[in-house]
């Protein structure tokens, strides 16, 4: 009854929520959205299945929290430890690898820390800390931020002790953080997909790449319908099956930006 009244209320305002259409909500990360991947592959799934995919692109931390609140049918993020915890706590059905790419450290032309062209992320961060060269961090508990913190820990540096000095926590998305890095000539850790697609590079370029520690794995999880009765389990699973199947995997592999492949499918 309440629902009926609400629909009626908003119907006259011309803002009826799409109740009849078949759609799922995917909680995901900014990197997959900003790189244009979803715009490229989702229409293919919709054409094949008739299911519309609505992507809410936020940081991995927020995406997981939203999914924990049952506000999504599928979770597609990149922080394996946090994803496994999500499943272990019963919020998700199971986790599967979807695709990977890698992180890179970008930096200004001047290269104060002298790390350009190297491939050891740990050593590079140590040099940045020693040189006290500006570093722009996401600082938002996203997948990229978690990776960055893990790298600092491995390097034995606590950058947050210098927060506000050479270490700048933007507390915002990847693109916003890259805008900050460009403006202040700071180093930053970014996933390669966002970097390639990013249009405001200014004088910034890739300084460090190719370290095994910079591996960036994306995983997909169906939100647990037992815990969240509102979840569209069947449609969500159909999307996951498509993503991990041949059609989805080759769609991911086919997506290029400036001739470069951004994501590498690796579902098993």
């Amino acid at each position, binding site marked *: 009854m*309440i*629902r009926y009244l*609400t629909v009626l209320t*908003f119907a006259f*305002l*011309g*803002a*009826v*929520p*799409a*109740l009849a259409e078949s759609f799922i*909500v995917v909680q995901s990360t*900014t990197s997959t*959205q*900003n790189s244009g991947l979803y*715009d490229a592959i989702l229409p293919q799934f919709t054409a094949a299945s008739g299911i519309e995919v*609505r*992507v*809410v*692109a936020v940081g991995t931390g927020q995406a997981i929290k*939203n999914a924990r*609140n*049952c*506000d999504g049918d599928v979770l597609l993020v990149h922080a394996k430890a946090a994803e496994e915890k999500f499943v272990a706590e019963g919020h998700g059905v199971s986790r599967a690898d979807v695709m990977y790419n890698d992180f890179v450290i970008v930096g200004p032309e001047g290269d104060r820390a002298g790390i350009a062209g190297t491939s050891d992320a740990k050593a590079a961060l140590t040099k940045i800390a020693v040189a006290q060269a500006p570093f722009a961090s996401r600082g938002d508990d996203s997948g990229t931020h978690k990776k960055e913190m893990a790298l600092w820990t491995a390097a034995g540096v606590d950058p947050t002790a210098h927060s506000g000095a050479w270490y700048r926590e933007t507390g*915002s*998305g*990847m*693109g*916003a953080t*890259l*805008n900050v890095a*460009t403006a202040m000539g700071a180093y930053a850790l970014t996933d390669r997909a966002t970097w390639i*697609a*990013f*249009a*405001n*590079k200014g004088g910034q370029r890739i300084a460090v790449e190719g370290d095994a520690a910079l591996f960036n794995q994306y995983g997909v999880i169906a939100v647990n319908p037992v815990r*969240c009765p*509102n979840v569209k389990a069947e449609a969500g699973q159909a999307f996951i099956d498509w993503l991990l199947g041949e059609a989805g995997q080759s769609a991911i592999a086919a997506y290029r930006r400036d001739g470069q492949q951004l994501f590498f499918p690796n579902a098993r």
Partner: protein
Amino acid sequence: MQDFWAALAQAFALILGAEAELVEIIGLSLRVSLSAVAIACVIGLPLGAVLAVGRFPGRLALSVLVNALMGLPPVVVGLTVYLVLSASGPLGVLQLLYTPAAMIIAQTILVTPIIAALTRQVIEDLSGEYDEMLRAMGVSRAGMIATLLWDARYSLLTAALAGTGRALAEVGAVLIVGGNINHVTRTMTTAIALETSKGELAMALALGIILVTLSVIVSACVMGLRASAARMAYA
């Protein structure tokens, strides 16, 4: 500066191209914001008038509160509405999260205090002039409120415009409760935020220029309406 001229050129190209996607985004922005302002007027106008002429305990405190709520941070409103509409929240069964309806609710909360506070001020000033006369005529308090609201209608349009400005410009609330979903809940402001995060600064600015233009058009329409209505009234 280079970005700015590129943005201007891009804004014109976007408008001339009239791409379906842009039309859709502008349409949703207007639909959400104007709906929110309409609802806020229904609540805010009587509320403001009651605060102006009503005589009840706590009236002053309530006026102070309404004035203070004009400064509600959109992100806080967005977060609160999210928690209420979330599937695990009290109104989760309505399934309104990530729909335009959720965005209208959030903006209504943002706009209502503005309209109520401005209405209170306008009506209070006006009631000073009318009070004695209405009282002498033996008009009831409800009748007084209706008369004052009607006679202040042109000034109250400005209150509605202030609310419209707030609604069209805010991004924090609609981003959280709408989710900036392509073709579903993407508005001008969330699209600007998205383009900025993609580093497409010229595109973001171009959308910003269009949004400002839109704001000018809405305001010009209201002013025009006001002028022609006033002419008709005194003709």
